């Protein structure tokens, strides 16, 4: 007996997922626990394994589609069994008019866009994947599957009537369009540059001519938002809008640190990076000025006793922040090993959700890219982030004499709701102490 497979919950916070690749094609045999697809969730790319044994009869959503939890993605059954009768079921309570081409195009059904867009009818991907269904009908129910910012809690997209008309005419899928109007409403200007040929917009009908305003071959490159990009955009916007940032910068003497690293790498025979050294130094400084290891909540200030340091790691499409747990309890070499392992897994997109959450303090290092100093955006709910600049060779004054020296700038971004200026300054003074007298890094 064929049955519909829904999008499962693949991470604790997942509300929707993007099908990255199908590992099975229609007609393939599927075993229990066999890999069906890879799904990009809000945190990581997860494996979507089958709970059933049978034949993959029908794929309802093409790769790249965003699907909300519990929405149908495929039909599994016996080989040769027909899946067609299940597809209307997969659409849940989709109004009959949405599946009936002639009536869907009449003004009568056009007068009920609200009902067509209820979450119950959210099986749009199904209709998008079945060219047999009328283009107009598909366009009409398309908003149901919308997951962009313009989607309300009830799953209904907010778009002006004119935008809906344009979407029908140009066969645009509004799900990936960001609304810039009141309350996130998609308005006409948000469609500028969106043509049917761009991957943002999934054609649901025969391709139509590109919008005449754009010269052929001169269209901007449109890159659909990945889940990671969505998460970055959402979290950093929240941070900058809601967290009152202020910034403290110190310029430390890094001469001893450079010398220590050179000798350590030569004499111990293990390579540690400046970043490893800074992470350990920060862990020591936090132990001495623990007030920066804190978090604001509307009810109370939370001072952490654990020192879990999030380390920003650049990956192909953005960045992630794996967490070095209990950094204050680890030796320099343990920290170095841990960061290497996490970075490798981050670049392979294999980090688990739990490896990227629960940090108490962040470090972002752009020194290796030649950045002298910068101010980082706080990674909520943490209370502070340290931005590490490059080590510069420059003349310094020592005992009233100008000598060659090594300097490094460190900027602490603080959430003023929980970390005040004096607290941040005390932490930076401790950090300066550790970096300028770095043998502690080996001892502690």
């Amino acid at each position, binding site marked *: 007996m064929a049955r519909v497979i829904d999008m499962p919950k693949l991470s604790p916070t997942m509300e929707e997922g993007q099908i990255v690749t199908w590992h099975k094609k229609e007609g393939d045999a599927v075993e229990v626990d066999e890999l069906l697809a890879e799904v990009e969730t809000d945190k990581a790319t997860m494996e979507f394994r089958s709970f059933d044994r049978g034949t993959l009869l029908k794929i309802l959503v093409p790769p790249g589609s965003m699907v909300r939890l519990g929405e149908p993605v495929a039909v599994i059954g016996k080989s040769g069994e027909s899946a067609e009768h299940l597809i209307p079921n997969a659409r849940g309570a989709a109004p009959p008019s949405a599946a009936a081409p002639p009536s869907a195009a009449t003004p009568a059904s056009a007068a009920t866009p609200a009902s067509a867009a209820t979450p119950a009818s959210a099986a749009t991907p199904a209709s998008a994947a079945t060219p047999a269904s009328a283009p107009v009908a598909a366009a009409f129910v398309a908003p149901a599957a919308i997951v962009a910012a313009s989607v309300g809690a009830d799953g209904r997209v907010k778009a*002006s*009537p*004119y*935008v*809906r*008309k344009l979407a029908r005419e140009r066969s645009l899928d509004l799900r990936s369009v960001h609304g*810039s*109007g*009141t309350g996130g409403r998609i*308005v*006409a*200007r948000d469609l500028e540059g969106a043509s049917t040929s761009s991957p943002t917009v999934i054609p649901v009908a025969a391709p139509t001519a590109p919008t005449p305003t754009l010269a052929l071959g001169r269209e901007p490159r449109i890159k659909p938002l990945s889940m990671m990009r969505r998460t970055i955009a959402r979290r950093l916007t929240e941070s900058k809008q809601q967290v009152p940032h202020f910034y403290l910068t110190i310029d430390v003497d890094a001469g001893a640190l450079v010398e220590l690293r050179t000798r350590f790498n030569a004499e111990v025979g293990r390579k540690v990076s400046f970043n490893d050294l800074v992470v350990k130094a920060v862990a020591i400084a936090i132990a001495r000025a623990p007030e920066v290891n804190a978090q604001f909540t509307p009810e109370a200030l939370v001072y952490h006793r654990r020192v879990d340091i999030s380390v920003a790691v650049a990956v192909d499409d953005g960045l992630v922040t794996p967490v070095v747990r209990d950094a204050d309890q680890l030796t320099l070499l343990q920290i170095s090993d841990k960061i290497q392992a996490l970075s490798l897994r981050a670049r392979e997109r294999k980090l688990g959700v739990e490896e990227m959450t629960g940090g108490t303090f962040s470090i972002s290092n752009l020194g290796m890219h030649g950045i002298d100093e910068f101010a980082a955006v706080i990674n909520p709910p943490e209370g502070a982030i340290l931005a590490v600049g490059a080590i510069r060779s420059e003349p310094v004054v020592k005992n009233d004499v100008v000598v060659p020296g090594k300097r490094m700038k460190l900027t602490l971004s603080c959430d003023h709701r929980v970390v005040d200026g004096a607290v941040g300054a005390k932490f930076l003074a401790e950090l300066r102490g550790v970096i300028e007298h770095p043998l502690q890094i080996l001892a502690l």
Partner: protein
Amino acid sequence: MKSMRYREAVREAIAEEMERDSRVFLMGEEVAQYQGAYKVSEGLLERFGEKRIIDTPITEAGFAGIGIGAAIVGLRPIIEFMTWNFSAVAFDQLLNNAAKLRQMSGGQLSVPIVFRGPNGSARQVGSQHSHSMEHFYVHVPGLKVVAPATPADAKGMLKAAIRDDDPVLFLESETLYSVKGDVPEGDYVVPFGKGRIAREGKDCTLISYSRMVHVCLEAAEALAAKGIDCEVIDLRSLRPLDEEILVQSISKTHRAVVAYEGWPYGGVGAEVVDRIQRLAFDELDAPILRVTTLDVPMPYNAKLEQHVIPQADRVIAAVEAVTYRRD
């Protein structure tokens, strides 16, 4: 073309129609000996004599009723209300006689009458004399209501009103009487039910009539400097209403603001909004906003009065809102 003031255009229309048709006469308070409270009828007594330019006592219900009776028996009266505020006293005549008799008589009677006078705000005439009466009258089937903004339309539409076989309410404005403009020479008649594009534009449609058309044009100039290109529609005729011009313009601009004098509850603006949302729903990119007189009786204090009357700055803010330049 001849340049003239609004009051001269109204006067010319009356004089030309009185020359053309001996059934036409003018009646109202101060229209004859005093030459008109706003000098609209200046010189007409001398020209047409006291049988056709008739002073009345302060009895709006009386002379409105006499006018309706005269129209029923074949004359073509022009009844001047010194201001439309005073028509409130004659409301029963307009509502129950002028508007109803054709229907109630099964088509045996017609009431070819024009009621005219200044409407809307003036300068510090107090709350009882600052009404925008069109909102009461457009509600009534059987009445035609027009409110031209320019001397040309004033002349052409008044001539059309006098020639109409049904009651027409012709709304002028104290603050429009001195406005100058070109008026075509000859027998210039502007039919009802046709709006006018006062300014072409592509980003937002500003819909107005009477005095507020000029405020909208001022707002459109300021908005052009901000890069927002407004189309200004002068409705001219409020009942019948030109739906086609609304749909055509909104199909081009996708956004609309209706600006007029009168309180925000109901009224002409609400009617315009209803037509647009019904006839051009799929063209709308933003909710339609209205800019109206504030929802209070008109204050006498000059500054407060100007605050209550819709001004260009409020029109500008509304256009910026529907073009999503501000919340």
